[in-house]
């Protein structure tokens, strides 16, 4: 009922079924479905048409003669995404210099990866991936040699998840590199890398990584199902994919973890989580994610027990300061002034005396100013970056106070909250916290601490009802599951002997013992 009203409101259905004057592409589709013929020229003509050669500049057809067989052959490849030197060394040279008559292509070509394909469509997929297609007169097969060579940057340091003690390397935009980084950390045959093509036109690929004898296969199927359900022409990278597969797209809080650190991803893999990688994404998606995975950083575990927990305590404090500092200030000064010690109260009121606006407006002004500086500072080109800092600090800090627009106390409160917000590293959680802060401020300005507590309760109720792929958001704290008890604080390294029970891993214990097949975990008491 509610759905239908919304659909009517936004004309959703109407748009979906609208008729557009589109080109009929059934002819092209039919061409792509046909098999390769024995006639070389016919074949090349089909592909020239599909690739619009010669307009299409970087698609090359190289014809040559295979000496031994006295047959004409042709190589089709895209030179910007293939390694031409490799092609010359391993395919062209051996074939054209070959003098034997009975060998097969596989015997002559020295490239390590070679396979046979018969359908036009499949040939196209391979060429688009940077591989070379070898056509031979009189042969119904096309030989695909893997010579792909996409350009990209090398492995860099992690920029957004910085650690002091621990590995520094980060994922980059090449999926192969990323998989290699993970395999470097988990040297087991059980680490499976499955690939799935998800988009219809751009043929983007997703790599699903999991440890075969740990992961819960029901969960794995759920993830795969959600990935295969997507029906779009193109998904460029993981950030887009995340929005397609997450459960609540309009929710304030993220339910899939994004990390650029291979060490973090691999430690999740070893606990039985599932990881998605994609070409063009310097990161990985980890699912299912709980509130705690957003709250933690990898450094918490690299630091010694006490130091790690100290940073956790600081982060928790920062979380609360970010959420509540401005809202508390508003509710205490507006509604519960008796709570403050008289001296402090007088100090606040004397600075507020000359300010023209009510405290609520003051707070909102400063909060928005801070968010503006933050956003502008992020987008500003680096040569003029320092300018923004000076303008922000001077104009908004000093001058605004001198001009009696805001009181110094509000500057302190907002700056404290803003500073603390940086302690929450994950970008999704960071946004969620910063946005929910505004709700809290609004409620506190209307109903003081009553409104603040009410809004907090609603928020907590909402968070507790969230689920990521069936896993409660606050697991394993509540509801309780057997796990390493890594929630607000972590335990000693050798006490973290269990994998998280909410994932239903096939092997619950992290110690060396082999599981005896008994059903472990899941036992909630």
């Amino acid at each position, binding site marked *: 009922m509610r759905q239908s009203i919304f659909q009517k409101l936004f004309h959703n259905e109407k748009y979906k079924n609208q008729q557009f004057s589109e080109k009929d592409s059934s002819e092209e589709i039919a061409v792509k479905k046909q098999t390769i013929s024995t006639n070389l020229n016919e074949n090349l003509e089909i592909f020239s048409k599909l690739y619009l050669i010669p307009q299409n500049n970087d698609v090359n057809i190289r014809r040559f003669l295979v000496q031994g067989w006295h047959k004409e052959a042709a190589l089709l490849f895209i030179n910007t995404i293939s390694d031409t030197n490799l092609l010359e060394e391993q395919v062209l040279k051996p074939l054209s210099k070959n003098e034997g008559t009975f060998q097969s292509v596989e015997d002559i070509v020295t490239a390590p990866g070679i396979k046979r394909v018969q359908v036009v469509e499949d040939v196209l997929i391979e060429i688009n991936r940077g591989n070379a297609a070898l056509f031979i007169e009189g042969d119904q097969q096309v030989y695909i040699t893997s010579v792909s060579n996409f350009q990209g940057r090398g492995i860099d340091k992690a920029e957004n998840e910085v650690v002091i003690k621990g590995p520094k390397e980060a994922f980059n935009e090449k999926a192969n590199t990323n998989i290699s980084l993970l395999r470097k950390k988990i040297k087991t045959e059980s680490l499976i890398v499955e690939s799935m093509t998800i988009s219809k036109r751009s043929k983007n690929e997703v790599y699903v990584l999991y440890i075969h004898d740990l992961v819960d296969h029901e969960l794995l199927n759920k993830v795969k199902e959600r990935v295969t359900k997507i029906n779009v022409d193109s998904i460029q990278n993981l950030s887009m994919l995340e929005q397609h597969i997450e459960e609540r797209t309009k929710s304030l809080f993220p339910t899939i973890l994004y990390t650029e650190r291979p060490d973090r991803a691999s430690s999740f893999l070893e606990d039985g989580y599932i990881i998605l990688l994609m070409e063009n994404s310097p990161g990985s998606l980890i699912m299912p994610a709980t509130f705690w995975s957003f709250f933690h950083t990898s450094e918490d575990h690299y630091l010694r027990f006490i130091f790690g927990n100290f940073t956790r305590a600081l982060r928790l404090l920062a979380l609360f300061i970010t959420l509540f500092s401005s809202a508390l200030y508003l509710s205490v000064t507006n509604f519960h002034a008796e*709570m403050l*010690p008289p001296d402090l109260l007088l100090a606040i009121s004397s600075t507020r005396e000359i300010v023209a606006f009510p405290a609520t407006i003051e707070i909102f002004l400063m909060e928005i100013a801070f968010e503006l500086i933050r956003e502008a500072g992020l987008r500003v080109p680096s040569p003029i970056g320092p300018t923004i800092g000076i303008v922000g600090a001077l104009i908004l800090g000093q001058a605004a106070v001198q001009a009696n627009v805001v009181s110094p106390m509000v500057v302190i409160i907002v700056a404290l909250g803003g500073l603390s917000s940086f302690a929450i590293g994950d970008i999704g959680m960071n946004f969620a916290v910063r946005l929910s802060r505004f709700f809290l401020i609004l409620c506190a300005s209307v109903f003081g*601490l009553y*409104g603040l507590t009410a809004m907090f*309760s*609603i928020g907590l*109720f909402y968070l*507790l009802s969230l689920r990521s792929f069936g896993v409660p958001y*606050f697991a394993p704290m509540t509801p309780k599951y057997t796990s390493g008890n890594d929630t607000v604080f972590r335990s000693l390294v050798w006490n973290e002997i269990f994998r998280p029970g909410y994932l239903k891993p096939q092997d619950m214990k992290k110690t060396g013992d082999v599981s005896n097949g008994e059903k472990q975990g899941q036992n909630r008491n």
Partner: protein
Amino acid sequence: MEKSRGKIGIREFVAVVILTIGTKMADDTPAILFEQMENAAWMGPLLIGALSIIPLYFLTNVFTKYKGKNLFEVTLYLLGKPVGYCVLFFLWVIGGIAITIDSSIYTDIIGTMYFNKTPTLVLYAILMGICAYGAKKGLEQVGSFAWSVLFWIKVSLFLALFLTFRQGNMDFIYPFFGPGKWEVLKSSASNLSIFADFLFLSLIAGFTASPAVFKKGIWISLVIVTIELSISLLSFVVLFDYEPVKMLNYPFHETIRYINLEFLPNIETLFFPFWLVALFIRFSFYLYLNALLFGGLFRVKDFEYLIPTLATLFVFLGMIPETPTFSIFDFREPFLKMITPIFFLFPCLLWVMSKAKGDMKT
């Protein structure tokens, strides 16, 4: 939205019970006890807790027998359909009255103690709105909420009690038996229904992870709640002495106004949010139970959708008394006395019926 009708574990169960029954020390329950038992009121909860062992023993015994069933199903099975329905309807009415009275009192506390200028209806609507939202999310969420805030609420309560005892005078507990041993016992017995919530708890017996969790949860929380109530009543006495404490309607709120913390002279607002959160949990839970019972009585399968309607109903009912501080107080006392026999006898009746049906042997 994925709806969860999952089961709750022992941690969540105990947390909910502690917060629903434990918050009674912060409403006018102490006032009722003080009026009858004067400075011996702190013995009240202990005696009530001890007396509650009898009905609770029968109750847990019955529910461990009927695994996975809740009060609703068991009552219908043991008492037969017509009688069972009547009894359950009566229980629903009692529950409804209890919610109305209690929420009205709490709104009055918020209004008189902290927000004198805000209209009662607004305060009331916010209170019940949030509780309806929480209850509609389901029992699992209410339980998890209770567990995740339990520690902080108890820390704040501990701080309050600590400061109270530091400023109080321990000699005020004498004469030890207040109005007399017999008086104390009598008024404890007649106010047994302070713990009647335990009876309603058996409505969710089937939603706990196992019957053992229900049984263990009941006993653990009975012990904690008894001690908590007793210590808080004691703290009120040592701070105010028995004559003034009899005149206070909401001793807890007067206490936190009275005490101070070093450089902070007024710290009642420091405790206010924690108390509020406990309040939200309490009424979310009550609303959930009420809707559950209503849904069972009138065969409403998705009873969660009833919660907003019921909450609105309770708001309007609770708005009827014009001076809740006095009228509700006068209404609640006889109400408590009226429920006492039900709380005591109903579990016994269930147990006897179960025995008569021969289910107890197997």
